[in-house]
């Protein structure tokens, strides 16, 4: 069996050669813009952010290539294990995670702080893709087969809400929902689910602890905390708006450099970019993101296995959600939730997770012609 597997998988070097290097270069290009912004955020210094971020990029790229070199069939088999591992990590956070900024989302590994809810985003995509891959098209329309994937989504969402991290919980829900949709679940079932949640939410409300209720309320209406989120948003809009068409120039953004702009190196880094490089800079970055998205879609559609298609689109949708929510957030279109700008914001786990996700995408690209049976066995037809 093992030898057969190997014979069907391209060997190491040819596989490396067949990787989608254009995509890699595109990702590196976006990351370089990130370094420039972190350099600017530190007032024209590599320290403390840009230098560390570049090391993380290094780690992330290595991870990405390693993931890409592993065949898609192996990922199919490992999908549930990866998911179980990520779920175990989430439980571990519950048990002995470090509390940062009032929320318990991190595992302290001494060298790095590690955020398992990020890993879960990719793990969930893998698990759902494997499940839907194994399902016949007839079965998909049967409600009893929806129970398992609903649990796969529900368990991490419940754990993440407890942390409490509603932003990530919503990302998991929307990302998971997109998988259901792509797998072919009928639209009316989404409607039923949606109504169900609307009905269930008020029932669950009294069971939340007061501080959790408070967090939910603040999440739903940031105006409750005008000096916190409201202030940040106003400053963000001022900084962004004052950038104009062409921006104020690199290192010249007054609002970000005078510390009016909060979190300028993490969640609000897009604002800083738009202040310094204007509308053109902002659109340029968004254009690069769109190119990445198109690559993702193209790779997914081209794949010959349902698993590959679903993982590819799952990763692509997750990436899109990051980009959209972050940019919409800093422009005051959606409430302020802590979602980083992919490959640009300072922060390790999100970057490494996303690059891991792109590794999967590239693995799917290399193995685009591999067909798999219900349990990942090779199939020629």
């Amino acid at each position, binding site marked *: 069996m093992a030898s057969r597997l190997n014979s069907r998988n391209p060997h190491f070097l040819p596989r490396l050669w067949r990787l989608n290097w254009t995509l890699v270069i595109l990702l590196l290009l976006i990351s370089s813009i990130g370094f420039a912004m972190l350099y600017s955020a530190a*007032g*024209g*210094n590599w320290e403390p952010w840009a230098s560390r971020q570049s090391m993380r990029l290094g780690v992330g790229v290595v991870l990405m290539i390693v993931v890409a070199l592993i065949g898609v069939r192996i990922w199919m088999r490992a999908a549930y294990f990866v998911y179980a591992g990520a779920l175990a990590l989430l439980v571990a956070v519950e048990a002995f995670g470090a509390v940062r900024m009032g929320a318990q989302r991190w595992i302290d590994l001494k060298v790095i702080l590690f955020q398992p809810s990020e890993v879960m985003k990719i793990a969930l995509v893998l698990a759902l893709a494997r499940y839907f891959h194994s399902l*016949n*098209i*007839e079965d998909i329309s049967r409600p009893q087969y929806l129970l398992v994937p609903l649990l796969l989504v529900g368990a991490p969402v419940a754990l993440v809400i407890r942390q409490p991290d509603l932003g990530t919980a919503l990302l998991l829900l929307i990302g998971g929902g*997109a998988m259901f*949709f*792509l*797998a*072919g679940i009928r639209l009316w079932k989404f409607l039923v689910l949606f109504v169900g949640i609307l009905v269930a939410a008020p029932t669950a409300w009294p069971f939340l602890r007061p501080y959790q209720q408070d967090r939910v309320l603040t999440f739903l209406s940031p105006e409750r905390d005008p000096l916190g989120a409201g202030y940040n948003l106003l*400053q963000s*809009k*001022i*900084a*962004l*708006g*004052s*950038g*104009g*068409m062409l921006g104020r120039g690199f290192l010249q953004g*007054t*609002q970000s*450099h*005078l*510390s*009016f702009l909060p979190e300028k190196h993490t969640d609000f880094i897009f604002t800083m970019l*738009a202040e310094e490089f*204007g*509308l053109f800079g*902002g*659109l340029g970055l*968004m254009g690069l993101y*769109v190119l990445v*998205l198109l690559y993702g*879609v193209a790779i*997914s*559609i081209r794949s010959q296995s*349902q698993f590959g*298609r*679903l993982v590819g*689109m799952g990763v692509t*949708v997750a990436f*899109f959600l990051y980009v*959209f929510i972050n*940019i*919409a957030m800093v*422009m005051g*279109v959606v409430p302020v939730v802590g979602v980083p700008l992919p490959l640009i914001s300072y922060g390790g786990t999100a970057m490494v997770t996303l690059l891991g996700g792109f590794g999967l995408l590239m693995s799917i690209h290399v193995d685009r012609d591999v067909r798999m049976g219900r349990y990942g066995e090779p199939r020629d*037809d």
Partner: protein
Amino acid sequence: MKADKTRENIFSRRTALVVGGQFALLSGLVARMYYLQVHQADRYRTLADENRINLRLLPPPRGFIVDRFGEAMAINVQNYRLVIIPEQAGDAPETLRRLVGLVEISDRDRRRVLREIKRRRAFVPLTIRDGLSWSEVSRLEVNAPDLPGVDIDVGLSRFYPQGTVAAHILGYVSAVTEKLRTGDPLLELPGFRIGKRGIEKRHDLALRGSAGSSEVEVNAIGRVIRELRRREGQAGQRVDLTIDASLQAFVAERLAAEKSAAAVVLDVRNGEVLAMVSTPSFNPNAFNEGLSVPEWRRLVNNPLSPLTNKTISGQYAPGSTFKIAVMLAALEAGISPEQKAFCSGHIKLGNQRFHCWKRVGHGAMTMIDAMRESCDTWFYTIALKLGIDKIAEAAQRLGLGETLGVDLDGEKPGLIPTRAWKKAVIGRRWQRGETLISAIGQGYVLTTPLQLAVMMARVINGGHAITPKIQREPPSGAGDEEIVAVDSPSIGYSAEALKLVATALDSVVNNPRGTAYKSRIRTPSMAMGGKTGTAQVRRISVAERESGILKNNQLMWRERDHALFVGFAPVNDPRYAISVVVEHGGGGSSKAAPIAKDILVTAQKLDSSRNTPPSRVARAPNAERDFD
């Protein structure tokens, strides 16, 4: 494989929908961005230029710590900082070179400044050095014309005027370590200090106060133009101690000659601690700027443990001072004070001999005689009749064997052994011989100097269970008469019994046969009473007893006896209780009693227990008023 094909078709159709949705959403963002950055650009540009209000935190001045008369024990002094404003300095490296000739600037500081200059905006002042001396300040002022862009900035730093004298009580402040950051923005301020030991630590929150803020107007590049609004913070509260700084200083000076010693003076009526000294001490001012690693190591590794407050953390065998508790136990048990016991120099128990300190024996002794001359044999005889548990009960009623709840960290409970204790902790049965050695304050018995002073006070104030206090309400200005005599609960001994103990303690010092007669106070109105104690720290072997016990001055310092004295004054209307422990000082009567005498004389002369400030001390200004 039709099914798979269907699946793929569904997937492709839906992917198209998803991608379409994504493009719609992104187009929305582009539109929004266009609206903000082009359509509304002018408006936001104006807002940005008007965005000039910066909030700055004003650190509150730390509360003062003052003694019972309002004399300052911990204050804030102005700290002169050398700063450079790069844009005014022009050639910064050249200016720095010129500065090196005037004040001491380490290479490290110079490199740091040169590095920082490149990073920061040119109008932000940069600290070159902290803690300039007066002569340095004046030298800089004189040369000011040659030093463009160099300025002297004034900040506040903690200062303890008495230096080492009250270091163990006051503690010290030092920089906030990463661990201690709680998210309070005040703790993030550079140069902020928090209390690390003693009162500075126990009352840190009150002393700290709360930060104010200042809204300043800055121009488009961040230069401060003017202050718009200022919200004053709350200055730290003043903490009033019961200590008399003058007495404290005297005690510290008197103990300075000893290698390692401790003394506590209490007001017997209310337990207020008037002086509390542990030698050797440390300089709390040194912690302000941070000690170097070798300096810190030297403090921590010093075998005489200068950082430890021995008055509450040092546990010593009380020696003969413990006989006070045994005497009370005997009286309580109905043993007649007139009952005599014969001292032949030792007592035999089974085949073991227990020796009196006087080898030839004291002869027939009454209770008072035995106290006066500290006859061990008499106490052995009585202890056998009483049993350990009765002795322990008396000791506990006098405040020994448990912490007293003084407002300082590191208070130790000491140890008063009982049968039950030995069974539970050591797991063996109590031996009768152990009762004997306990009766003379040896064996398992351990006490702290503070406990000994409390014991003395409780015996002499009419049997009121006072507890030691170190912090008090600021004096209201009411007269001395207002001191509440004593409103603590009674320790339950009869007035006659306590009177007898007082008489015995009087004779220890003022009877020519008493063990502390040489240290009597000759002014009758100031006369003191007390009890000496000499606590053995090594075992005397049978062989050594045969060949003659070694004298203390023949021994290594570590092996010499601890010298103790507990006392009170004046005899006819007691106000002060004292305990003195000189580690390895030799004899209680030769070493500790003279120290106690000098301290009690001084306390009475200073009239330390008064409630209100006398005219001799200028009152320290209130913390709220002094600096801003």
